[in-house]
């Protein structure tokens, strides 16, 4: 996981499930309704707001080619007509009446929707959320109108050279099922989406036993559970979508290869990606991966000194993104065309040394754990982020993983890090993408 992402994500968290005392300390409470909906309440009355969020196990990982991008389109259609609201115009007006700050996002393994509202708007906001999540109409007219909005979003993404690099590398790393790592989706699929396909997604994934309702802010657990029961218990349970539609496993990268992406850029970016651990299959390696990233991110690290203080790069990082369907491990560095070859060689040399016993000190390993613990305090400063953070972890790893994250990271040893590197990085095939201008490319010899 990216270091700063970890900081943001672990922030609020804290021990729950098996560690009830810690859960209470951090005011996080959980209950499952009879229809299977997980309700998570985060009590933090520091400001008179409540965030009402619904997370769904959906996203790119559920998408074969013919559905690629439709979790994302569905996310957009959430903000349109439903059984109680006749049009998107009225929908937006209602959001304003509620005084809501709102948004949604679609990722590889999660889709979320949220409204942050003044406490006084809590009940109408719950009703509003319930109607939107359970009864979208998918009016053909609105579906057609939303297509250019989505392609406009893709246009923006494709204007970003780093998006192009990331997409090109991902296609090779996840070569057999690339659509299942492409949340933005394919234009052709989005432009030909039908109401029927939207209904298929709804019936398959938008069932309470595949979702979580998170209520965070100025709300007690008693009130949260009572209101959740009152307003969400009539949402009808469905079949487990992952039994009827299992997600295929990404096969390993076939061979190490390099690709070059040309764009009008003014630096050379090196982007090396491996297939990393799946959290449900190898949780121990996910902690080791994060500990290593925290070590390498320190300015006293050999990694930083050899690659940044040496002047070979303007910046470098090695991160793992926690996911359940093999998260990516990415080494990213920026350099100049003139230094590219030396930089690449130095990176490869660094990777070879990374497993050596003396590569990092005991103090740096301890610092990594301290940083984690303090970052957790920094993260808790932002109550509005709690629900998103919790939603992400609920979706990709489960709440228990998330609540025990800090404790488990503290247990990481040198041997764990070495094993992680040996299992996923050292000698393993990878894809190296290089982003360069056409002029610089001539100097790179690629």
């Amino acid at each position, binding site marked *: 996981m990216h270091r700063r992402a970890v900081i943001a994500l672990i922030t609020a968290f804290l021990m729950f499930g098996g560690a009830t005392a810690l859960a209470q300390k951090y005011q996080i409470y959980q209950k499952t309704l009879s229809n299977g909906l997980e309700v998570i309440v985060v009590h933090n009355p520091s400001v008179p707001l409540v965030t009402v969020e619904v997370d769904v196990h959906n996203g790119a990982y559920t998408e074969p080619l013919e559905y690629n991008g439709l979790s994302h389109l569905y996310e957009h259609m959430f903000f349109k007509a439903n059984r109680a609201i006749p049009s998107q115009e009225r929908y937006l007006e209602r959001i304003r*009446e509620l005084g809501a700050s709102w948004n949604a996002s679609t990722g590889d393994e999660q889709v979320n929707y949220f409204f942050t509202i003044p406490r006084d708007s809590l009940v109408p906001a719950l009703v509003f959320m319930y109607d939107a999540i359970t009864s979208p109409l998918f009016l053909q007219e609105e579906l057609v109108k939303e297509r250019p909005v989505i392609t406009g979003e893709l246009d923006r993404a*494709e204007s970003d050279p780093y998006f192009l690099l990331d997409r090109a590398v991902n296609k090779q790393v996840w070569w057999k099922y690339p659509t299942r790592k492409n949340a933005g989706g394919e234009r052709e699929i989005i432009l030909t989406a039908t109401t029927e396909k939207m209904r298929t997604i709804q019936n398959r994934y938008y069932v309470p036993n595949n979702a979580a309702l998170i209520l965070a802010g100025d709300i007690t657990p008693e009130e949260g559970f009572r209101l959740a029961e009152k307003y969400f218990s009539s949402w009808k349970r469905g079949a487990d979508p992952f039994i009827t539609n299992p997600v295929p496993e990404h096969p390993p990268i076939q061979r190490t290869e390099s690709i070059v992406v040309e764009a009008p850029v003014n*630096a050379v970016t090196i982007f090396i990606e491996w297939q990393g651990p799946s959290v449900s299959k190898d949780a121990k390696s996910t902690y080791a991966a994060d500990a290593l990233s925290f070590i390498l991110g320190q300015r006293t690290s050999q990694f930083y000194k050899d690659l940044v203080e040496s002047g070979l790069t303007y910046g470098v990082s090695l991160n793992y993104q926690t996911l359940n369907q093999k998260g990516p491990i990415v080494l990213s560095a920026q350099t100049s065309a003139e230094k590219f070859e030396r930089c690449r060689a130095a990176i490869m040399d660094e990777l070879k040394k990374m497993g050596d016993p003396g590569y990092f000190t005991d103090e740096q390993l301890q*610092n990594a754990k301290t*940083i984690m613990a303090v970052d957790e*305090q920094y993260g808790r*400063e932002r109550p509005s982020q709690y629900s998103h953070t919790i939603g992400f972890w609920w979706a990709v790893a489960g709440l228990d993983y998330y609540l025990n994250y800090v404790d488990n990271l503290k247990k990481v040893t040198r041997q764990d890090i070495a094993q992680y590197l040996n299992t996923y990085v050292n000698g393993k095939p990878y894809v190296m993408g290089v982003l360069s201008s056409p002029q610089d490319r001539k100097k790179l010899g690629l």
Partner: protein
Amino acid sequence: MKTRILTILVTLAMCWVQARPASPAESFSVNGLKVIFVPNKANDIIAVNMYLRGGSATLDMRQAGIEDLALRVAILATKNFPKEKLNAELERMDTRMFAAAGRDFSSISLQCVQQNFTRSWKIFTDVLLNPSFDSVDVELEREKLLSAIRQSKDDPDQYLSSLAMEAYFVDHPYSVDPSGTESTIRSFTGKDLQSFMRGRMATSGMLLVVVGNTTREELEKMVNESFGKIPQGRYMASLPPAVSFQTPSLKVVRRELPTNYITGYYPAPQTGTDESYAMSLAESILQFRLFEEVRTKRSLSYAPVSGLGGLFTNYGMIYVTAVQPETTVTVMLNEVKKLQSEPVSEKILNDQRNQYLTRYYLRTETNGSQADLLARYELSGAGYLKAEKYLESIRNVTPEAIQKVCQKYMHNLQFVLLGNPAELKLAPFTY
């Protein structure tokens, strides 16, 4: 809506929004250094921000970027904390230090937990008063900055913003880019940086804002020990002049992109004035209407935006990415005209105020953001106390006031388009 657009909106809006201190802010002075302090025992985090008044608006073109480079190098090593020691200590405590250079002011900020406050303060003050400016650090940071300047054109949004600032602030103090140019960044020596930094350490040109779990007594003692004997200087605050255009304009910068990036700037009222609150609500209502008319009803864009810039001599802007620029901008300007010709209803105004309340709380969640927002009001001349009365001021805004500020300010927009439209008529951009 995805994160990036949200980021644009939040960035634009956050600049000027109000602080909601955990407790009332208090202020005191030590050797001419004004200190604003907000005790907050709700968490163990302490935010310490030292602001240097003036920013790049007080520099000439040849000095552009000197403050950015100086501050970036200053936080790397000091007389009493050589690089290795400084890094090791910061990592051991997970104390963070950031440097930022802007047009109106610059800052070095510190974030730490309460138990590490005393030690972190020693490093922080040594960074300000005894930076080493080691030649190796200077060269490394210089190379990073040069690369960042070159790369600023790679991202269309960043490039558009830079082009728009250039087109809007012509022959104006804000035309001095705080990041500098390749030429100026290459020209500074280590001695230049050291001398510049030493000159900035005069208390009349500094403002310290602390928010967190400490006491005034402890803070006052620490400030006195560190800054009680440094020069006071004679800093005189002055706001950059207002910008006024007699005609609208459009500048097109050609680039092969899948869509066109477009923005138009107009003047906005000074912070803390009655007009500024009316403009904040006007901008917010316009944002809602642009989303509805451009995106929801016509599907012309994923990303129509209305916002305020966040400078002391402020500007407003509309922004969009669109494959049909003329049609899209016409719809956007029609909404501007509607705000000027028709007062908003009381219902819309009330709803908008509700959304403001929500945003108000969301934007003041961290101690660091509270410190920054209090400082913005103080440094702009409005005074930090006005920041605490923001909601009251918003409640007093009337539909007539909104209409009036729109009529007064939203004219002669200075447009910039980055993209490659086949044909472009000037008329739709002329307002």
